[in-house]
Each structure stands twice: as C-alpha cells, then as structure tokens.
C-alpha cells in the first residue's frame, strides 16, 4: 500500500499531486513536464517537498506537518533511473552488490543468484558499465536497485533511452518483477503502450496534478482523458485469453467477454492471458453485423458515451459485455448512423492495424498482430 501526497513549487511549476495505490505496478503516466519525475524523486527522498506525506506499507517516509523526513539512504526505496546511472568505476558485480553493503542482512539466503538469473545478467558480472549495451545497462540498474532489498521500487522511464528492440528485451523482466517479487513498483512513463502492458494501477498526471487514478483498463477507457493520453495513441484494453490456434490460416483466436478476436499467430499456449490494446482509430462502427467484409473481428456492444472533441471528430465508448472499447469517428458518421447512448452496434476492428509500436520481440509474432498485443 502506497499513499502519496506532495505539494512543491519549482519556479513557475507547481506539483500538487496525491494518489493511493495497492501493491503491483503503479504507472505514473503523463507528458514530459507533467511532474512525473518530481513526484518519484519526492518518494525516493531526493528532495524535501514544501508540503507532503508519503507512506509506504505503513512506514511514514515524509510528513512535513509532523516534521518527518527520512533521508534517501534510509528509505529503502530502490530507484531505477532513466539513464541507468551505473557507477563507472565499478564492474557489474560491484555495482550489483553496492546496495547490499548497506542493506541489513536478512534471513532467507542471498538473493544475488536469483536476481542475476531473473535478469539474465550472469554473463556480464566482470564487465565494466562502459562496455555494456543500453539494454544490459538497464537490466543491471534494475538488479542493483533490487539487491538493495527495497520496500518499494521506483522506475523513471527505464525504457526511454532504448530502441524498440532493446525495449522488447527488458519488458519480460519488468513483468516477471511485477509478478514474481513482492516489491511494489512505481513506474514512470509517457508511453501509453508501456502503461497498457505493465500497469496494475494507472495514475494520469497533467501539469503537476493528478487527472485520474484507478485500475488501468478503467482509466484508459475514460474519454475525458483523451487530450492527456494523446489522441492518436488513445485506446482501450481488453483482457483476453488464448482460445485456440488456427494453424491452417496462421491465426490465433483470442477469447474476450464479447466474443472472439482473430489475430496473426501468437506463440503462446492455449489458455495464456493477454492484454490487447485496441486503438480508437482502428475501430469502425456498424449498425448491423456486417457481411461481405474482409475484417475478421466484429464485437457486438452498446454505445455508452459520446464525447465531441475538436472539429469533426468525436470519441465514443462502447460497452462490449462489460468491457470498454473506444472508437473515434467523424461527427457526420455519428449523425448519419443516429448513434446515441444505449444504441446497439457492432464494433469492427480493422485488420490492417499492424503496429510496429507494438511490443516487438516480447510476444513472438506480436509485431504483425491485429492490434497491440500485450502479454500479462
């Protein structure tokens, strides 16, 4: 359990943000300059906020009204920085062990081997940071933070400095971290794709304030947040399960609440859970179940909400058997089709939604998927 409330002035910028979150991975999402890094720096104790209260699992780290400010080195908040910040004068093993010099000896054996194995960095131990690739550096940085036995792990855009391929290399490790260790994670990102894939709880920050907090799928389905999440990238998340593989056509069938989705083959076992992010711009609306259409994916649903945006475009939220789907259409289409809340429609998901922003390399075949596929 993490409770954060921080007010701090930095020149003309004011950070005034508060959120609570359960364990798991909490994503702080927002544009650059929204105050994401300032917020986690306050959590890590890298500065003393003007006013604020930060509590991790019942331990008060900052409480300005009570005059409490635990210094950074006694907080047990592991920090994975955007640029890694490995110590250049130490080799990988020494970097990894740096935090354990100061962490209390805890029962349960040495986690070193387990974490080295988890992150796949066993072959790098004797190397110097200068001789590591970007992806390797970030994995070592994550391992170094974990080995300081943190009570909370904060990660500041750990993938931002990496190219697509290297990102795909790190993703599975962060997911394993989220699922296999008990350490809660606060993850800063300005990439909706990362958030969709990783976050349990989503906090949307805008100009220093919290615009929304909640379970990821719920927050991402909110139409009023579109200006913040970015129109082009906006989309909803569907929880799916691999139902079958259609070998003859090289397709995988995913089961969602409202029906089935067919996507290019995914190398996952039947029954595996997947998050699928379907972008609003890839969804078309039909009044009747379409026939004679090349699109493979049609889900029945009900219009739940229509929000007019700027100019001719409107955003629409559909309720597909309890799950939200977001569509982006012209105002003219809405009028022609007579779309109003409560109307029953069919959502057609375009098959050309091939996405290189998808998590290349993470799920084999995901790069050519129908929509963005996120394992998890």
């Amino acid at each position, binding site marked *: 359990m993490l409770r954060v409330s921080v007010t701090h002035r930095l020149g003309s910028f004011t950070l005034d943000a508060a959120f609570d979150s359960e364990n798991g991975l909490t994503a702080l999402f927002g544009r650059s300059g929204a105050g994401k890094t300032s917020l986690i720096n306050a959590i890590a*104790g890298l500065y003393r906020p003007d006013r604020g209260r930060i509590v991790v699992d019942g331990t008060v780290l900052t409480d300005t009204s009570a005059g409490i400010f635990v210094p950074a080195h006694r907080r047990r908040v592991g920090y994975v920085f955007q640029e890694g*910040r490995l110590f*250049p*004068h130490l080799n990988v093993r020494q970097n990894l062990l740096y935090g354990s010099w100061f962490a209390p000896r805890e029962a349960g054996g040495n986690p070193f081997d387990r974490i080295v194995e988890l992150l796949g960095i066993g072959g790098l131990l004797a190397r110097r940071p200068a001789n590591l690739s970007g992806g390797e550096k970030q994995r070592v940085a994550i391992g170094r933070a974990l080995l300081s036995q943190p009570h909370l792990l904060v990660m500041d855009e750990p993938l931002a400095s990496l190219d697509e391929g290297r990102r795909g290399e790190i993703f599975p490790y962060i997911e394993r971290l989220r699922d296999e260790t008990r350490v809660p994670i606060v993850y800063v990102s300005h990439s909706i794709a990362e958030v969709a894939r990783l976050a349990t709880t989503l906090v949307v920050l805008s100009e220093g304030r919290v615009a929304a907090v909640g379970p990821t799928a719920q927050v991402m389905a909110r139409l009023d947040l579109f200006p913040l999440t970015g129109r082009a990238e906006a989309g909803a998340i569907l929880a799916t399960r691999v139902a079958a593989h259609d070998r003859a056509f090289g397709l995988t069938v995913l089961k969602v609440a409202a029906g089935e989705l067919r996507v290019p083959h995914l190398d996952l076992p039947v029954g595996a859970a997947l998050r699928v992010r379907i972008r609003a711009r890839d969804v078309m609306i039909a009044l009747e179940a379409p026939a004679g259409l090349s699109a493979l994916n049609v889900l029945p649903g009900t219009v739940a909400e229509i929000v007019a945006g700027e100019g001719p475009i409107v955003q629409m939220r559909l309720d597909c058997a309890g799950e939200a789907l977001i569509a982006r259409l012209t105002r003219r289409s809405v009028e022609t089709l007579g779309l109003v809340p409560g109307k029953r429609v069919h959502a057609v998901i375009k098959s050309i939604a091939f996405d290189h922003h998808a998590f290349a390399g993470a799920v084999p075949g995901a790069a050519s998927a129908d929509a963005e596929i996120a394992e998890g």
Partner: protein
Amino acid sequence: MGLIGLTPEELTAIRLSLRVATAAMLGSLPVGLMAAMLLARGRFWGRSLLNVVVHLPLVMPPVVTGYLLLILFGRHGVLGEFLADRLGVVFAFRWTGAALASAVMGLPLMVRSMRLSIDSVDRRLEDAAATLGAGRVWVWLTVTLPLILPGIVAGMILSFARALGEFGATITFVSNIPGETQTLPTAIYTFLQVPGGEVGALRLTAVAVAISIAALLASEAVTQRASRRAAGL
C-alpha cells in the same frame, strides 16, 4: 666528487629539494582537498573570501608571500611563536619552513586541479548511491573520491613540481642555508653568485630538468591510469 660528478653539497641540495617537495605535496593534500570540496560544493558565507585566500599566492609576488610567512611563522611571528612554544614546531630557517613556503605556493594549483574534477562529477551518481542506502560519508568515499582521483593525482603532481621550482618565497622566508634550506633553485642561484660557479650551476640545472621530466612522465602515466579507471575502461 661523488655520483656522476656531483659534489656532496650538490647531492645534499638535491636530496633536500626532493624531501621539501614531497613534504609540501603531502602536507597540502588534506588542506587542498578540503578547500577544493568547500569551494566546489559549499554554500556558505565567506566562500569567495576562501577562494581569494587560496589563490593569493598565485598572483602575489613570491617575495611578498615569503615575507608574509616570515611575519606569521617566523621565530617571533604571530603563529610561529605559539607553534614553537606550545607544539615545538619550528618553521623559521628550517627545511620545514621551505616545505611550508612551497606548499603555500603550490596550493592554488592543487586546489584548481581538484576543484575541476569535483565539478565534473555527475552528482546524479551520488543520488543513485544514496537511494542504494549509502549515507553522505559513504557516498563520498565510494563514489566521489574514486571519480575525482585523477584530479587529486594531477593536483599532487602540480604541487610537487611547483615545490621543486619554488624560489622567491623560500629564500625570503627561510633564507638559503646549505644543508637546511638550500634547495635546487637556491643552490643554483648561489653558484651563479660566485666566480667559477657556472659548472656547478649547469650540473644542478641538468638534474632539475631530469627530475621535472620524470615527474611529468610519472604524472602522465598515473593520471591516465586513474582516468581510465574512473571512466570504467
């Protein structure tokens, strides 16, 4: 005539010079490092004053520095009397005085070199160390110090070299006593004051050149090694 044609007096001057320079270098190391840290990181009243005091010997005529040292640390100087009576430390007309004069003259160079390297330390690495549980002292010992080591070494070499060449402040403060305060430069000067002394002056000049080249080569090697280490290569 002893080793490679050097007279015992000349050998004494060489040995003394090396001893004075080494003492000056080692003695000013803690002072210089502390001053460099304060100037680079400190935010306190009187910081510019400290900066001026440290750099003064660089801009004042060495004779002035030497005379000020004489006033302060002479046998009847303000501090000299106190140090002699209470601690038994005497600088006036001793080799220790020559070392003190050299240390003061070399301090600005040492501090400058160290300060530059402290300024170039990525302080975000220190933040990273703090999040890993290191308190301020440990951060300094395990991150800052290794990263500024090249600057420290370079500063020490500069101080040593300056001490070897120091003339004005030394001769003003502790005079030119053979075997006690007569270093290489003052010995050369003395040779040049007497008829027929040119040969001796030339021999000592050759020695001075040799020592300087050796010191520069050593500094180059050490700095390079330390830099490579700090850069993680």
